[in-house]
């Protein structure tokens, strides 16, 4: 039974991690039908940004809570800028091209960003500071579920609720749903489709950046290549959870423990 609970908890955590990244995939796929392979790289850039900001802030002796918030916000903004730019450079010119063309350009973007970080930073693994502290009240059950697992679970839940609210009840959410259903028709009724697509990339990238911060702090190390595998796994989660976007993001949370058990059954 203990074993089951342990597996269940770490399955939930892992599922939440992938869900945070998978949301970005799903949103983009839903709206422009593109599998954004550069998304994992955006996540990696988020992790690196928060690493740099957190290191600088901790040198100046800021309290941990301030570091987490500032690093998170900085990473989200920086990654959003990357997501926005990638869309403008690599996908927008190909909006009316055959479907394979933007896919190839997405893979190209992924390789470009990876190597850019490799050259700008380092090829080595870097020790990521422990941004999520070990809570004292968690100590009795620390062998089953850690503090960072709890924080990841809570953050993912909050982010998903916020996103559901955004999609269902706000103006931009309505515009997104409309664009997802029929882009031409959305244009005809006066929705600025380009702006909606940009917004999608910005939101997805910000989520990936938050994921980057949480996961890097959970695992404790980063390097330039972490985005690739995380991206592939999140993509799997997105497919299993249902990549077709219909205004809610209920698909992903289920895939956590499922994925974990499947993984154990079939791959190990």
């Amino acid at each position: 039974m203990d074993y089951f609970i342990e597996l269940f908890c770490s399955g939930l955590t892992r599922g939440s991690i992938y869900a945070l990244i998978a949301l970005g995939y799903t949103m983009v796929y839903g709206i422009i039908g593109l599998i954004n392979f550069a998304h994992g790289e955006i996540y990696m850039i988020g992790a690196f940004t928060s690493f740099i900001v957190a290191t600088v802030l901790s040198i100046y002796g800021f309290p941990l809570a301030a570091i987490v918030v500032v690093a998170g916000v900085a990473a989200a903004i920086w990654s959003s800028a990357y997501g926005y730019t990638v869309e403008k450079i690599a996908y927008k010119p190909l909006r009316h091209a055959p479907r394979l063309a933007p896919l190839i350009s997405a893979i190209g973007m992924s390789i470009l960003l990876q190597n850019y970080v490799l050259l700008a930073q380092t090829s080595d693994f870097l020790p990521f500071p422990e941004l999520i502290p070990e809570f004292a009240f968690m100590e009795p059950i620390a062998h089953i579920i850690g503090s960072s697992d709890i924080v990841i679970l809570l953050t993912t839940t909050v982010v998903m609720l916020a996103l559901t609210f955004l999609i269902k009840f706000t103006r931009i959410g309505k515009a997104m749903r409309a664009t997802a259903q029929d882009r031409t028709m959305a244009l005809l009724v006066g929705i600025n489709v380009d702006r909606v697509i940009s917004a999608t990339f910005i939101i997805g990238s910000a989520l990936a950046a938050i994921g980057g911060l949480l996961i890097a702090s959970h695992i404790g190390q980063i390097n330039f290549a972490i985005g690739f595998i995380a991206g592939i796994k999140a993509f799997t989660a997105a497919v299993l959870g249902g990549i077709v976007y219909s205004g809610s993001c209920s698909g992903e949370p289920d895939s956590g423990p499922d994925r974990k058990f499947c993984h154990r059954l079939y791959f190990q």
Partner: protein
Amino acid sequence: MFFNWRKKVKLKMRTNPLVTAAAVALVTMLPIAGLAGDTIKIGVAGAHSGDLASYGLPTVNAAKLVVDELNAKGGVNGKKVELLIEDDACKPEIATNSATKLVSQGVDAVIGHICSGATKSALPIYKAAGVILISPSATNPELTQSGDYPNFFRTIASDDMQAKAEVDYALNALGVKKIAVIHDKGDYGKGLAEFAKGFIEKSGKGEVVLFEGVTPGAVDYSAIVQKIRQAKADAVIFGGYHPEASKIVSMMRKKRMDTVFLSDDGVKDDTFIKVAGKDAEGVYATGPQDNSKNPVAQVAIAAHKKAYNSDPGAFYESAYSAALAIMNAIEKADSTEIAAVTKALRTENVETPVGNIHFDEKGDAVGVGFAMYQVKNGKYVEVK
């Protein structure tokens, strides 16, 4: 691309005869310079980029230092030594390219490759071309013990000796009974893990409670950590490299497990301590013997500090030894011809940072072994 370039040259040929003359001169001169044969060409191949670059770059430094010193003294047998450096990123598929490139540039011997998998895939190319390969770090036993590669030598002991050192230490010095053997599915890690499993079973003193592989580069390793706990292992023997080791150790400590962690020279690297931080404390790893008392090693390390203003990295000493050994053999053989150099490597002893060595029939260095180290206060310290 190529066609465009040719077109441009043709265009210029019509317009500017001077450029034509220069181009013709360039094209015809290059091969002459290449064929002159007034240098001894030594290739240096290994991981110089990617996440295992920290294993490969010290070898480049070592080779440069040895060769610079020789050239300053007038070279070997009156010829200058020239280094050709090729990156294989520790990937077998890239290593074959590096090997082909080095062979086509006419190397006389190669120092490398660094990783066992890359070495294995590159060896047949060197064998066919009659090029000697001397590796400072490829520890896969097959490479020498299969007898397939008479052109292969190494200045580091093979994995079975390393696995034996780990198992002996775990069973005898630490007295553990239940051991989980984990590996990274690679040539090096899995090979080592299989040897460790074999030695544990043969000893009769311990029991292998878990034998499993993990996928390198995965996001987290909580599943394998839970399995280790479930198996109630007292110790973990891990075959693989430091990126996976540090994640597994950190995850174990995070789950409040104090299971002993033993690993290999793929983990005995300061990057491991840097990344795992406080979780690295107490981890055991085997590595080449401590040679700090050896005067040749002291000279080699001092040279590195002088030239690069830093401490040498992983496999520096064995790489320095490999470079000394091959240069010594070429000098004693007074030739770069493979049979003569092979004979010299096997018969002529040479003073190196890893000791006074020569090579046996299979290509392993005689007089090189492993020692056990433990992380104490952020440093690897030798334990007895």
